């Protein structure tokens, strides 16, 4: 396989990261802009959770996420939350 697409895609992804960090600070100083910038990660992560769980339909991943939500409520540490979600999903697939 050619290296060219790998390097182009990697350079593009880096450029996107740098572009976000390089927006002039005076454009980010307004109260509204700052509020939006603060809420963006919340919106992006929530959207990611939804799409990664339900892309391709509802399956065992949904149960994994529900188990993760319960673990979060029980204040389980990060790794435990992830492990519980993976184990629940794998177990459900094994049983069905």
């Amino acid at each position, binding site marked *: 396989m050619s290296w060219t697409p*790998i*390097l182009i*895609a990697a350079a593009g992804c880096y450029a996107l990261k740098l572009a976000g960090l390089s927006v002039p600070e005076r454009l980010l100083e307004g109260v509204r802009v700052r509020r939006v910038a603060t809420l963006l*990660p919340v919106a*992006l*992560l929530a959207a990611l959770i*939804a799409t990664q769980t*339900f892309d391709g339909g509802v399956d065992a991943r949904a149960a994994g996420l529900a188990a*993760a939500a319960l673990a979060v409520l029980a204040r389980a540490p990060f*790794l435990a939350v992830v492990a519980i979600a993976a184990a629940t999903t794998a177990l459900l697939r094994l049983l069905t």
Partner: protein
Amino acid sequence: MIVRDAIGIGVATGTYGVSFGAIAVAAGLSVPQACALSLLMFTGASQFAFVGLIGSGAPAAIATALLLGARNALYGLRLAPFLRPRPLAAHFVIDESAAMAVRDNAEDTRLGFWATGLAVFVCWNLATLLGALGGAALSDPRVFGLDAAAPAGFLALLAPRLREREPQAIAALAAVAALIALPLVPAGVPVLIAAGVAVAAALARGGKRGEGEARAPRAGGDAAGADRRGGEAPRAGGDAAGAGAAA
């Protein structure tokens, strides 16, 4: 505390880094090419999409990787005031580091970002190498439920930021918007649409109400905050589940 969480996140991403390495090699990349993607592109969703699509042509693979990478630019808007030097910091702007950087003060923001970015970088790259060498046996992330690990991890990262009503509403709205868009647009775009919808809603609401209002719930104190978190954290997941069932 922050550093311990960061290392935990690194270890967790390592588990699906193994899948990535194996999938990349199964898709026809050499071991050095799989490792180069993790070292140079270093943004998981884009990498998975790239190796998934490269078989059907470079343009589609590159375009989808960039669409999925576009959200990193949006994280940058929030992180820009805190991170120097920018050309170095930029490489570590990913979902996990951005999530861990959502903190109340500048020092914790920087620590959350750098500790998580570096921990994930080390683990992700080691795991990619392992997976690439390990071969096809490791290439199906579904076997160990690892396809549920990433969203669960993001939920754990997001939950502490959902103590107040506004982020809860934004999160629920973004999840629903992304699920509605999911079957209609190319990969990577639903998340961007969701961010747009959420921001528009926040601005509309911000215009109607005063600036001080958003800060008010925080005065509730730790106990109230903890209760609220306990009671409402799953709401985003619950809404998402409902919308998913409907979609």
